[in-house]
C-alpha cells in the first residue's frame, strides 16, 4: 500500500463502495449488468435504490441537527462520485430530492424540517424541486404558477414540467408567484385534496431512461399558511442559492460517469491487441487516455474546491458553483468522447464489454451540461458576477485559499439556518487572484503558468477597461483560469502527501498545459507524461477511483 494523501472526507464513500460491490461483477449488489437491463426496460433501478437506502444514503441528505449525517459537502461529493460511477439515474433521483430538501433545511419551519427528516430517514422518500414550466425554463421571471392568499392559507395553481421524481415524490418545493414577487412553497402532494395535485405523464428522454421525469399540475391546491418559505418574495433568490449546492454536486456526477468511461477504455486498451500488441501501447491511444485522466484531475480539483467553499467561503459559491457546473461536465463529456474513440465499435454496442454499459454512460452524462441550468446559463451567471467584481467600488473581504484545497481536513459542517439567500458577490475570485494575478512562485507548474498569468492579466484589463456588460467569451476564459488556479491550490495544499507518481508535480504541469492550450493539446512531453501515466495505471490496477486522493473501490 502506497502512503498517500489521506482525505477524511472519503471515509463514508469507501464504506458505501464496499456495500455496493464491484459493478463489473454480475453478482454484485449493484451491477452494470442489472443497471443496463433496467435501462433497456426504461424502468427505475429499484434494487439499486433499495441497496442505497439499506446502506443509509438518505441520512447524508439530512443535516445532523435533524438526525442525519450531512456535514460537509466534500464528503457528499465523494458519495455522489461513487454512486454516479454506477448509474447517474441513482444520483439524479437523489439529487432532485436534495434540491427539494435544501431550501427546507435553510428556510423551512421546524415542523417542515422534522417532516422531511422523517420522510428521508424513515422511508428513503423522494422529493421534487418544482421550478421549471413549459414556458419558463431558465427564465424564472416567466413563472406563471401562482400561490394566491385564500382564507388562512394559499391556493396553488399552475403546471410544473420537467420535474425530477414527479411521479413518486412525497414532498415538493415549488416556485410560484406570490405577493410580493416569487416565493418557494412547500407541498405534500399526497396530503392535499384529491385532484388538486396531479402527477403528469413521465417524459421520455435520450439518457437517464430509468429516471422519473415528469410534471406536477396544481388546480386550486389548498396550502396552509406556513407553506411559503420565509422570507416570502425571495423565492428566486432561494432557488438560485439552492442550486449553488446542487450544481457543485452535478460536478461529482459528471466525475463519476467519467471515471467509468476511462476505466472501461483503459481496460479495453489493455486487453485489445492489434498489430501484435495491446492498443494502449500505441502512443496516440495512451496520450488520448492520459488526457482523459488529466481532465478528471482538473475537474476534481474544481469540484473539491467548490464543495469545500460551500461552507468555508459561502459568499464565493455563487461564482464558483457556476464555474464548476460549466467546467466539470464539459471536461467529463470530453472524457466520454475520447473513451469512445478508444473503445471504437464497442462503444456503440448495447452488449459485450461490461454488459454494454458504455453507451448508457455516454447517453446519461449528457444531462450534466443541461440540467440545473444549461452551460449558457452558467456563463451568463459568471459574466454577470465578473461584471459586478469589475464595477465594485470597494473590494470585498478576501478569502484565505489554503484551506479550500487542503484535503487532510474535512470542510466545516453546513449550518442551514445560517444560510442567507445570496446570488452574487462582488468579492472576486480569490484563487485566480492568488495564483494567476499574484506572482507566487510554483516551479512545478512549468511554462504554462506564465502563459496563464498573461491571460489572467489580459482578462482583468479587459473587464476593468469599460463598463459594458461582460460577454460570455470572457466568462469562458475566466472558467479556464479558475480551473488552473484550483489545480495550483490543490497541489500547494497537499503536495507533501501525494502518491509517489504525483509528488513531483508533473500532473500539475500537464493539467496547466492542457488548460493553457485550450484543452486539446495532447501531452507530448514524455518526461512529464511517463510518471502521470504510471499513476493512472496504478490507480486502475489497484482499484482506486481516478483521483488526486486515493479512494479504494469495491473489488
Amino acid at each position, binding site marked *: 500500500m502506497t502512503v498517500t494523501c489521506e482525505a477524511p472526507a472519503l471515509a463514508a464513500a469507501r464504506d458505501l463502495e464496499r456495500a455496493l460491490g464491484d459493478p463489473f461483477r454480475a453478482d454484485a449488489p449493484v451491477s452494470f449488468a442489472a443497471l443496463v437491463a433496467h435501462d433497456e426496460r426504461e424502468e427505475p433501478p429499484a434494487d439499486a435504490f433499495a441497496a442505497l437506502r439499506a446502506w443509509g444514503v438518505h441520512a447524508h441528505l439530512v443535516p445532523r441537527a435533524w438526525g442525519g449525517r450531512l456535514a460537509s459537502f466534500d464528503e457528499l461529493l465523494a458519495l455522489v462520485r461513487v454512486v454516479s460511477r454506477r448509474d447517474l439515474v441513482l444520483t439524479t433521483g437523489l439529487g432532485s430530492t436534495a434540491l427539494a430538501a435544501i431550501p427546507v433545511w435553510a428556510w423551512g419551519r421546524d415542523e417542515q424540517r422534522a417532516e422531511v427528516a422523517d420522510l428521508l430517514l424513515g422511508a428513503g422518500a423522494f422529493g421534487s424541486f418544482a421550478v421549471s414550466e413549459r414556458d419558463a425554463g431558465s427564465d424564472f421571471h416567466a413563472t406563471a404558477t401562482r400561490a394566491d392568499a385564500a382564507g388562512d392559507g394559499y391556493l396553488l395553481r399552475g403546471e410544473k414540467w420537467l420535474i425530477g421524481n414527479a411521479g413518486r415524490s412525497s414532498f415538493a418545493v415549488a416556485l410560484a408567484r406570490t405577493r*410580493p*414577487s416569487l416565493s418557494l412553497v412547500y407541498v405534500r402532494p399526497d396530503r392535499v385534496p384529491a385532484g388538486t395535485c396531479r402527477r403528469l405523464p413521465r417524459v421520455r428522454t435520450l439518457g437517464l431512461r430509468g429516471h422519473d421525469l415528469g410534471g406536477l399540475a396544481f388546480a386550486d391546491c389548498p396550502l396552509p399558511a406556513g407553506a411559503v418559505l420565509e422570507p416570502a418574495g425571495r423565492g*428566486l433568490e432561494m432557488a438560485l442559492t439552492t442550486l449553488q449546492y446542487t450544481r457543485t454536486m452535478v460536478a461529482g456526477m459528471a466525475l463519476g460517469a467519467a471515471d467509468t468511461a476511462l476505466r472501461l477504455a483503459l481496460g479495453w486498451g489493455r486487453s485489445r491487441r492489434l498489430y501484435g500488441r495491446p492498443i494502449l501501447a500505441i502512443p496516440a491511444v495512451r496520450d488520448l487516455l492520459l488526457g482523459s485522466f488529466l481532465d478528471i484531475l482538473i475537474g476534481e480539483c474544481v469540484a473539491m474546491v467548490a464543495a469545500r467553499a460551500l461552507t468555508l467561503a459561502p459568499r464565493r459559491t455563487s461564482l464558483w458553483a457556476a464555474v464548476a457546473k460549466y467546467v466539470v461536465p464539459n471536461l467529463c463529456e470530453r472524457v466520454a468522447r475520447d473513451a469512445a474513440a478508444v473503445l471504437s465499435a464497442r462503444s456503440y454496442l448495447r452488449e459485450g464489454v461490461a454488459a454494454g454499459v458504455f453507451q448508457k454512460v455516454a447517453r446519461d452524462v449528457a444531462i450534466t451540461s443541461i440540467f440545473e441550468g444549461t452551460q449558457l446559463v452558467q456563463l*451568463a451567471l459568471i459574466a454577470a458576477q465578473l461584471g459586478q467584481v469589475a464595477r465594485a467600488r470597494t473590494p470585498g473581504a478576501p478569502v484565505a485559499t489554503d484551506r479550500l484545497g487542503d484535503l487532510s481536513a474535512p470542510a466545516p459542517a453546513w449550518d442551514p439556518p445560517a444560510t442567507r439567500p445570496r446570488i452574487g458577490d462582488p468579492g472576486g475570485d480569490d484563487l485566480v487572484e492568488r495564483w494567476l494575478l499574484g506572482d507566487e512562485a510554483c516551479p512545478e507548474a512549468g511554462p504554462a503558468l506564465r502563459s496563464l498569468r498573461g491571460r489572467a492579466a489580459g482578462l482583468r484589463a479587459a473587464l476593468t477597461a469599460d*463598463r459594458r*456588460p461582460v460577454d460570455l467569451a470572457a466568462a469562458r476564459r475566466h472558467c479556464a483560469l479558475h480551473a488552473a488556479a484550483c489545480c495550483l491550490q490543490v497541489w500547494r495544499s497537499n503536495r507533501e502527501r501525494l502518491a509517489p507518481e504525483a509528488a513531483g508535480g508533473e500532473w500539475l504541469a500537464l493539467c496547466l498545459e492542457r488548460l493553457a492550450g485550450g484543452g486539446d493539446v495532447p501531452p507530448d512531453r514524455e518526461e512529464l507524461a511517463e510518471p502521470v501515466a504510471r499513476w493512472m495505471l496504478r490507480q486502475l490496477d489497484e482499484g482506486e477511483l481516478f483521483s488526486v486522493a486515493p479512494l479504494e473501490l469495491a473489488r
Partner: protein
Amino acid sequence: MSVTAAADLVPRLQEAFAGYLGLEPAEVDPDRPVEELGLDSLTAAQLALDIEERLGVSLFLNDLTGRETLAGLAAAVLAEDRS
C-alpha cells in the same frame, strides 16, 4: 438601522446602487427610471438582498416595471412599512 423618511432613505439607496454600478453615489440620479441605470437582472436581485441586509428595507426589484425612480421607490417602501 431605522430609516423613517424618504429623504433619509434616498441617499442610502443611491450609495447601494452606486456600489454595483461602479459610480459615485451622487452620479446615481434618484429621479431617473431604474431601468436606465444599467443593472442586469441578477445584479439587481443581489443588490436588493444587500439593501435588505444593510438597510432593513425590502425592495422587490423583480416586481418593478423599470419606470420607477429611486425617489419613488423610497417613498413606496416607507409607505409599505407603515401600513
